[in-house]
């Protein structure tokens, strides 16, 4: 559950930064083009522009709904690092031009996506632009030795040294982008920064490796091959992009399937309609509150969706499907059956472990030192809350449910988790 109402401060800051960057570089470029020599760069600029717009149109969604455009990023990195080839087209442009052209290409690439009604996430674009600006600055703007930039120095380097430097520059640029993404995400989901950063890297690592290599690849190949290099050397990355797309598609499918299967108990009349998905949504926002990592959150989500699956082993449904009202022994049996069913899949062991312990009272932890997964404790509280509010989801029902949960605080429920519930509920009010 994300809050649309309030844009986190960091997004505003980054947005302003990117806007200023774009406008300033556009003005600088305008001034540069007073010199006729700049027009010799137009073939290269044009070719990269087209590649970036195309790449922007065919973007990719990484697992965890991260939008990115690998081809566009690789083209922009290569654009920032291309050196004079001596094959006609000149690469005698400076850093500001790279930033300005990238920004304009992003805007152009947006148009088809907006027309097709696809969601547009400005923070993703803004962070990407800042990353590219870092690459352009490092390669073309920053004086590193006697006032000379990498671009000035590279003529005397051996090609493989240049290649290495290009990979490093790309890697730094992408690190900046990923870090900013993590900051934005952390601000949105109220999760700890370090953990978000780790999640972000885990999701982006494979693609980023491919990207930094491809940026260098295109920039280097431009020398012997000319402009043909741009489409040609993006081909390996196209394969990567295709694979990543398949990967996130199957993730989505998996989730959809679990969601649908979680409704089977509802359709069979075992549980109340919408119970599983409400428990899942609430568990997720509590997981955020408690600073869980993305992997843990995925298991939590699946476990929350499937927490009542054990009920299919009952001959007759419990009235209203509310397990909180069932006898403790029955609750445990349902939990156990559910865990067994999920264990049968052979691939959801983590989820099974969570389900197994979902009814264990918190005092077992305190009194017997039993290890109880945090996810199980969350689901226990969420399930109780949803069963207790029942049809009365207004303020009154909510307060009554919280009050009853408070009665079991420390004995039945983990106080830390109940606090998270209260916080998560308060946040949805805002």
């Amino acid at each position, binding site marked *: 559950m994300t809050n649309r109402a309030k844009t986190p401060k960091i997004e505003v800051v980054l947005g302003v930064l990117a806007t200023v960057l774009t406008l300033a570089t556009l003005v600088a470029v305008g001034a540069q083009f007073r010199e006729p020599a700049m027009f010799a760069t137009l073939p290269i600029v044009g070719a990269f522009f087209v590649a970036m717009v195309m790449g922007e149109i065919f973007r990719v969604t990484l697992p965890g709904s991260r939008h990115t455009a690998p081809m566009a990023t690789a083209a922009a990195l290569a654009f920032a690092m291309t050196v004079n080839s001596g*094959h006609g087209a000149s690469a005698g442009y400076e850093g500001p031009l790279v930033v300005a052209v990238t920004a304009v290409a992003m805007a152009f690439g947006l148009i088809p996506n907006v027309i097709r009604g696809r969601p547009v996430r400005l923070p993703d674009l803004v962070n990407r632009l800042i990353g590219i600006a870092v690459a352009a600055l490092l390669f073309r703007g920053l004086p590193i030795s006697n006032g000379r930039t990498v671009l000035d120095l590279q003529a005397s380097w*051996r*090609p*493989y040294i240049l*290649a*290495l430097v290009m*990979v490093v520059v790309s890697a730094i640029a992408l690190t900046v982008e990923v870090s900013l993404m993590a900051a934005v995400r952390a601000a949105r989901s109220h999760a700890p920064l370090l953990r978000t950063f780790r999640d972000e890297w885990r999701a982006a690592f*494979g*693609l980023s*490796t*491919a990207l930094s*290599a*491809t940026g*260098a*690849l295109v920039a*280097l*190949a431009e*020398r*012997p*091959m*000319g402009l*043909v290099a741009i489409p*040609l*050397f993006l*081909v*390996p*990355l196209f*394969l*990567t992009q*295709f*694979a*990543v797309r*398949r*990967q996130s598609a*199957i*993730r*989505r*499918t*998996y989730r*959809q*399937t679990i*969601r*649908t*299967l979680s*409704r*089977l108990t509802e*359709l*069979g*009349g075992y549980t109340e309609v919408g119970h599983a998905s409400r428990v899942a949504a609430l568990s997720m926002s509590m997981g955020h509150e408690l600073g869980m990592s993305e992997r843990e959150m995925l298991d939590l989500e699946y476990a929350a969706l*499937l927490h009542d*699956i054990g009920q*299919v*082993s009952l001959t007759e449904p419990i009235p209203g499907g509310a397990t909180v009202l069932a006898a403790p022994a029955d609750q445990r049996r349902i939990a156990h059956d559910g865990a067994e*069913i*999920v264990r*049968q*899949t*052979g*691939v*959801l062991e983590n989820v099974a472990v969570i389900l197994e312990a979902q009814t264990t009272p918190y005092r077992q932890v305190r009194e017997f030192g039993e290890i109880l997964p945090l996810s199980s404790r969350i689901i226990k509280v969420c399930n109780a809350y949803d069963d207790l509010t029942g049809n009365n989801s207004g303020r009154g029902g909510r307060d009554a449910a919280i009050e009853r949960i408070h009665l079991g605080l420390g004995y039945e429920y983990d106080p830390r988790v109940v606090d998270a519930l209260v916080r998560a509920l308060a946040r949805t009010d805002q």
Partner: protein
Amino acid sequence: MGVLPYAVTTYIGAVILLAVVLAALGWRMHPLNRDDIVPLVVLCVMGVLSESVRGSDVGPRTHLSFTSIVSLSSVALIGPFGAAVVGAVPHLLGFNKDRAQVRVFNCAMNSAHSAIAGFVYLRIGGLQVVGPDSGPQELLLRVGLPLMVADVALCLSNALILSGIVRLTQGTPIRRFVLGMLGTSGLAYIGYGLIGFLFVILWVPAGVGPFSAVLILAPLFAARWAFVQYGDEQRAHERTLRALVAAVETKDLYTRGHSERVALLCDLMAGSLSLSHQDTEALRFAGMLHDIGKLAIPTRVLRKAHGLSGAELASMATHPARGVEMVRDIEFLKGSIQAILYHHERMDGRGYPTGLSGEQIPLFARIIAVADAFDSLATSSSHRDAHTVEEAVAELRRRAGTQLDPAIVAALERALVRHVWQPTRLEPELMATAGRAFDHDDPAASDLMASPAHLESSTSGEATSELASAEASSEPATPDPALPEPNGANPFWAKETAP
């Protein structure tokens, strides 16, 4: 696995001989010199790397063979002999735990087809030493184009040599194997050729040298990693779906495992109907989920052995539609929805839910109908033992044209020739606890529900008596001569009554 058959050994020997001869010819045509040593070593390392990741599963229908890229790069960089060496080395080191014979054969085969690609490349004017000063046009025409032709040669010789050994060991006809292989990995080979070309350009004309290997391999390994993840998730997804569907089936004890068996039968029939991979997938999922709607039918009705009232039969008949309701939102099941909805339609138009007939019924639905009826017959139930496969098929054949599609029944027969099917006999204890139940998949039930009179006369009780009679007459333990025999058009019931 002991001694290989004589013919196989001879074939492997011939391939080894071919590889040695080609390598020798390659050396005569273009011996290695000192400058070739670094590329040779780097390419061998790349080959070993590619080989060490080969075989780990990257999901169905996804072939990623970096070995071909390495072979093609060596063709242009160090010539046929070098290519032959680079082709052989990874298999000699034996990263995979293949048997010795397999390893030797792969080694010889890769060496041979790399050398062949090398000869083709030189023959059509590919440049052996790519100068650092060549322009784009020269690179495209004298390196890129010949490399693509060499690529085709590589692909073809690979398919041919491999088809020989497959013919000898598994009996697959050469023609079918070659065409199949070209169909599945032909397109990928174009990509290999292109990437090999990029590698060569980066190495010599761009002057990057051995470091090119890192730049080229990074996106490829990233792609591979994503494909492996994809494969894992896909398998996990299918297993999850299967296990959870099985769990839901516990509600109805007699149908335990039924969905899975129907899915398997669908898979087999898809083979004999030569459906595409995608269609097979959709069909299998439809088979797995065809009865999911039964979850919405009250347990009381499902567990009722006989005496289902017309209203209860009518409620039973809603399960296809209820099933579709449940899975409608799952994107990847879009191709399976129709099949789930219409799997109880009959060729004569007397099925449910809409009474489609003949070709109007979607193909997948007709396939599931056959699988469904077959599995029902070949499974024991409360009122009779499981039929043998022959009896079940004979019964299906009798029903071809009225209830079932004759072409599909024939497809099932073809599939059953190739695969052994064991009828499912439920354990007596299970049957005792389960009590008696109405099997809606039994062809006799289809007949019963096909008669509109029965569904309409929900209060008159006629339907009830007929079903009860069918059940009773098929159960040797409780013969009830007072009840009328089921109608003569359905002799199998009568036959089954004989103990």
